[in-house]
C-alpha cells in the first residue's frame, strides 16, 4: 500500500505542489538562496553570540519562507495579483503569534520525545 502511494500519489502531489511554486519561481529561488547563504555564514553553535547580520537575515528569511507560501499559494489558487505592502503588514502582524505557537508545538513534540 505504501509503495503504491509512493509511486502514484506522491509524485502527483509533488507535481501539484510544484505547480503552485512555478509562477513565482524566481522569488522562491531568491529566498532559498538568501536562507542558504545566511545559514552558511552562521558559525557553528557555541556559547558566544552569533554575528548580528547573518543571524538577523537568517531569522527574517526563515520567517518569510515559512509565512509567504500561505499568502502566495492562496493568491495562486484564486488567480489574483498581490500588492506587497498589505502582504508585508499582514506577515508582520502574524509573525509574533506564529513564532509563539511554533515554539509551543516544538516544545510539545520534544517533551513527548524526551
Amino acid at each position, binding site marked *: 500500500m505504501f509503495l503504491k*502511494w509512493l509511486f502514484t*500519489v*506522491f509524485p502527483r*502531489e*509533488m507535481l*501539484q*505542489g*510544484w*505547480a*503552485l*511554486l512555478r509562477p513565482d519561481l524566481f522569488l*522562491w*529561488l531568491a*529566498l*532559498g*538562496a538568501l*536562507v*542558504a*547563504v545566511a*545559514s*552558511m555564514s552562521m558559525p557553528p553553535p557555541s556559547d558566544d553570540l552569533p554575528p548580528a547580520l547573518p543571524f538577523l537575515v537568517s531569522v527574517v528569511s526563515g520567517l518569510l*519562507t*515559512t*509565512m509567504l*507560501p*500561505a*499568502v502566495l*499559494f*492562496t*493568491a495562486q*489558487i*484564486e488567480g*489574483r*495579483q*498581490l*500588492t*506587497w*505592502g*498589505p*502582504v508585508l503588514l*499582514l*506577515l508582520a502582524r*502574524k509573525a509574533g*503569534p*506564529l513564532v509563539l*505557537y*511554533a515554539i*509551543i*508545538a516544538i516544545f*510539545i*513534540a*520534544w517533551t*513527548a*520525545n*524526551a
Partner: protein
Amino acid sequence: MLLAVTFALGKDNEILIPASEVVGMVILISILARFSFLPFLVILLERDKLPPALWQWQRMKSLAPLFWPLTAGARLTEGSRWRLAFYTVLGQILPAAATIAPTPLVLPASIAALMVLTTVQGVFFLHYRRRCEETGVLPPTLPLEDALVA
C-alpha cells in the same frame, strides 16, 4: 520515551537505546505532522471562522481559545497523518542531506533542498484546503482582502 521502552524491553536489553531512539523519532515526527497546517491556520484564519468542534476542548474550556491553531491543526490532519508524516520526514532529512554534499555543491544543494521543501509546503497547503472544504471552513481569503487586486 526511554522509560517506556525500558519497561517494554527490559533493562539489560541490547536493543534498548536504538529502539528508544527509533520510537522517539516516530513520536516526534507524528506530533510534528499534527502541526503541519499551523502557518496556514495562523496567517489565513481567525478563530471565529472555524467551527467550535475544530478547536474546543472537553475540559478546561476557558483555555481552549488560547491554543486554537494547535488544536485545529491537530484535528484537521486527522485521517491523513501518515502521508503528512512522510512529507515531514522529507522536510527533516533534505536540509541535513544538503550539508553533506561536496563543498562546492553545498550552496546549490541547499537551494535545491529549500525548493523541494517549498514544494512540500505546497502539498501541505493543498491538503489543508481539502480538509477545510471537508470540515466546512470558509475559504481563507479574508486577511488578504486588502492585499489582493482582482
